[in-house]
């Protein structure tokens, strides 16, 4: 049966890229110089191992070779023979980048740049040697049958304690029954071993069941092997690398008295051949480890003494927006359940409809209520499928903070909270870049250099915090730091200089901090590599507003800055309050409504004889007569006769004057710009229940209009 391997390639790429993320996260969690966290190393190792395996299967030789070099280094660390150093972490991180680039290039079926990979591989190998007492065994091409262990220049370590003048190794190899299910073949392993020295193999047939009970694809044999020669322990272990998890393996030095007590009976019965008898029924499954081994051979790493400067290429990470999402089966099951309910309701309704009589009106209403509930639930759950945890955005920050803080010479600790908070995929895609900008700002402008921090009595290590949480139907993301904060005075001066603020007036902190969102207004003393140029905070704010969010700043000079982004749960649907203005019907997003009041004469005052304000719960709110703004005819003009809807956006409240409130309705947002253009004060359009178009008010736009008018 021919299997089209092509269909799995996409999965390989997706899984490998995920694996790289895992590796990156693991590497960043490593503490150079400290005791190695074995669990972390194992995680990283496993990820590298899967990529290596997968790439071998699909014939991406470059990836296989490269991963192998990484794997070798990681393996040393895993065995505790190397200490993790900062340099090592950085090189491995660079390697992760390089691999990611290779994978992306391969996915696009383009030629990959081998120079960079080679250069990095050399550095990886140098790290290996740098840290190890190298014995001067020349790295010669190993015999062609040897395993992947030969590919890297294994410094053949003079094993300190384990093999003083080792005669060889005694290996107890007890495969699990499912060894051959994964395509491994003991014979091949033995052949590899034989290439390392003189090999004696004895099979233990005790587990072999009677023929009637024998499952042809299971492995019932165990082996005791004796390898004589000067092979290093890890060379031997490497041969078993692919079956490690599927067998019990003991490797002992031959010098010691044999502790592996094989039964006499077995010893005598086993043929002293160099190859064990195989269960005749054992399937000859293609074993990828051999393919791997051969591939590896062609790749003797070029050695160079001088370290070349790495050619840095802009990482293509940012542009890779995933086109598919992984959805947990729970979410899908929930939707299927709801569809089931919907079908029930539908059959109920059609039963009612076939011969309807007025006395069954109650039943009809009941069924319609149920339909309403079903629809709502279904919609909510379908929306949830599009929701991704915000960690998919946050995950890039540990790396970024690591790199940038290194470049700036600052000590930074990144604290991440609430990364499991779920947001609509579209929103996630849009907020990545603004968040990067905000975090960079914090690192570059916010946090002080270590010496300055110490002078100010702060701990040397600065904190940058990322926090995500749900609150009242929105999602909040906070980026905060304990750096120097915003310089209110400097901003105020800038504001006055540029004419954005008027001299002699009092401005709230909020108004002053708002200035940093103005294009071309930077308080950075100098433009740096990290931030202070290019996209400014104005772009950040615009991006956030594009997805219907808002952004706010709180700051204390000398203590830090906190930027809060508020995002809608989803972009596609909102709860709306229908209002009438004259003959027209508009929709106000329910979330922005604080309260609706009928005004009386005491509540309305005039400021400076013109602008009306509403006294509302101890505050004075500007009143916006929407009919005036929209030029609507036939609207109620007497403030006492209509209704005032108090709405809030960007932290400001205004009273919108409308004729009347109609019902509430969930509306799906449609673009007005696609066929028409942006209309001031209108955020979008929707189709109402009667098929007509309703316009959705842009509350933050209206609040801004109001401020501009005042």
């Amino acid at each position, binding site marked *: 049966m021919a299997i089209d391997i092509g269909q799995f390639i996409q999965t390989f790429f997706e899984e490998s890229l995920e694996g790289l993320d895992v590796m990156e996260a693991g590497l960043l969690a490593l503490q150079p110089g400290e005791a190695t966290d074995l669990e972390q190393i194992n995680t990283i190792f496993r990820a590298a191992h899967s990529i290596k395996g997968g790439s071998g299967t699909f014939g991406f030789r470059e990836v296989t070779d490269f991963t192998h070099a990484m794997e070798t280094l990681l393996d040393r660390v895993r065995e505790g023979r190397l200490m993790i150093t900062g340099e090592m972490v950085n090189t491995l991180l660079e390697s992760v980048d390089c691999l990611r680039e290779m994978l992306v290039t391969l996915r696009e079926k383009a030629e990959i740049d081998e120079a960079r990979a080679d250069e990095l591989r050399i550095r990886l190998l140098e790290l290996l040697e740098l840290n190890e007492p190298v014995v001067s065994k020349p790295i010669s091409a190993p015999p062609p049958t040897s395993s992947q262990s030969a590919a890297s220049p294994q410094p053949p370590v003079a094993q300190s304690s384990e093999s003083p003048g080792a005669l060889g190794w005694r290996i107890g190899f007890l495969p699990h029954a499912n060894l051959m299910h994964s395509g491994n073949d003991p014979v091949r392993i033995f052949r590899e071993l034989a290439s390392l020295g003189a090999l004696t193999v004895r099979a233990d047939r005790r587990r072999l069941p009677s023929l009637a009970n024998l499952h042809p694809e299971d492995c019932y044999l165990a082996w005791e092997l004796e390898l004589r020669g000067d092979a290093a322990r890890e060379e031997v272990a490497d041969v078993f690398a692919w079956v490690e998890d599927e067998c019990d393996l003991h490797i002992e030095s031959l010098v010691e008295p044999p502790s592996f007590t094989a039964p006499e009976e077995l010893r005598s019965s086993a043929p002293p051949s160099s190859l064990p008898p195989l269960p005749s029924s054992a399937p000859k499954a293609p074993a990828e480890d051999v393919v791997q081994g051969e591939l590896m051979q062609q790749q003797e790493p070029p050695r160079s003494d001088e370290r070349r400067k790495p050619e840095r290429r802009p990482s293509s990470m940012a542009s890779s927006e995933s086109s598919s999402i992984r959805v947990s089966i729970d979410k899908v099951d929930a939707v299927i359940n709801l569809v089931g309910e919907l079908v029930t309701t539908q059959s109920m309704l059609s039963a009612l409809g076939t011969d309807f009589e007025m006395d069954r009106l109650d039943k009809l209403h009941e069924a319609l209520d149920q339909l309403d509930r079903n629809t709502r639930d279904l919609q909510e759950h379908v929306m949830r499928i599009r929701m991704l945890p915000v960690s998919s955005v946050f995950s890039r920050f540990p790396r970024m903070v690591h790199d940038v803080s290194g470049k700036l010479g600052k000590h930074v600790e990144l604290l991440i909270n609430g990364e499991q908070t779920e947001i609509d995929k579209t929103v996630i895609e849009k907020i990545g870049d603004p968040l990067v900008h905000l975090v960079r700002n914090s690192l570059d402008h916010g946090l002080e250099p270590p010496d300055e921090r110490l002078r100010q009595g702060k701990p040397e290590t600065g904190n940058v915090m990322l926090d995500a949480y749900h609150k009242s139907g929105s999602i909040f993301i906070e980026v905060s730091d304990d750096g120097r904060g915003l310089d209110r005075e400097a901003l105020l001066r800038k504001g006055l200089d540029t004419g954005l603020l008027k001299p002699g007036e009092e401005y709230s902190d909020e108004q002053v901090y708002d200035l940093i969102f103005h294009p071309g207004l930077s308080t950075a003393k100098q433009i740096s590599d990290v931030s202070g140029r290019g996209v400014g905070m104005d772009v950040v704010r615009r991006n956030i507003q594009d997805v219907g969010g808002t952004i706010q700043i709180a700051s204390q000079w000398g203590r830090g800055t906190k930027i809060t982004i508020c995002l809608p749960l989803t972009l596609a649907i909102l709860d709306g309050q229908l209002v009438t203005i004259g*003959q*027209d*019907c508009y929709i106000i997003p329910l979330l922005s409504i604080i309260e609706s009041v009928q005004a009386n004469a005491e509540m309305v005052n005039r400021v400076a004889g013109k602008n009306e304000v509403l006294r509302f719960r101890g505050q004075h709110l500007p009143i916006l007569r929407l009919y*005036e*703004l*929209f*030029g*609507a005819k036939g609207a109620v003009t007497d403030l006492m006769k209509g209704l005032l809807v108090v709405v809030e956006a960007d932290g400001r409240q205004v009273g919108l004057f409308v004729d009347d409130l109609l019902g509430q309705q969930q509306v799906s947002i*449609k*673009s*007005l710009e*696609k*066929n*028409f*253009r*942006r*209309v*001031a*004060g*209108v955020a979008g*359009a929707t*189709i109402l229940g009667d*098929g*007509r*178009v*309703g*316009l959705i008010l842009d509350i933050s*736009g209206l609040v*801004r*209009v109001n401020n*501009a*008018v005042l």
Partner: protein
Amino acid sequence: METKTTDLAPMGTVRSPKREILEENLQYLTFNLAGESYGIDILRVQEIRGWVPVTKVPNAPVFVRGVMNLRGAIVPVIDLRLRFALEAVEYTKITVVIVVTVRSDHGDRIIGMVVDGVSDVLNINNAAEIKDAPDFGTAVHTEFISGLVAIDSGMVMLLDVDRLLSIEEMFALDTVRGSESRSVVAHAS
């Protein structure tokens, strides 16, 4: 209200070598407006529907009647009489909205235009039948007319819908005219 819907042509016809061959046999949908006959490229026509009241858009130029729901898409509706600064009339039973595709720098748009009534499909077998538009003598600004065709009962003016219904151009015009309520909003933008 009754809605006539006639799908006349597939969407997305592009200028291709094929089209060159078609040049020999051009088809135009003709309609009446204030007693005159106009034609538009039939490949641009998506459908023709009866007039139904639309949703007004605040602060839009007077010739933008509003927006309507075209199977879930929000489509602006332009009154062609008002676009040409002709006298407005009451809409009647035969008042129709021709939904057309308009190409622009911002991609294809779908726009509805209100006309007095559709009349016919005009076949032109020879491109030479189309004469250049004169500089004067019509109610319509000649920049929107791509050519003239003489028929038995008179003359048909062929319209360039991309120019005529260009949102950018319509609003550029509007800014010149200006209006009080609009200037309030303009502060904000």
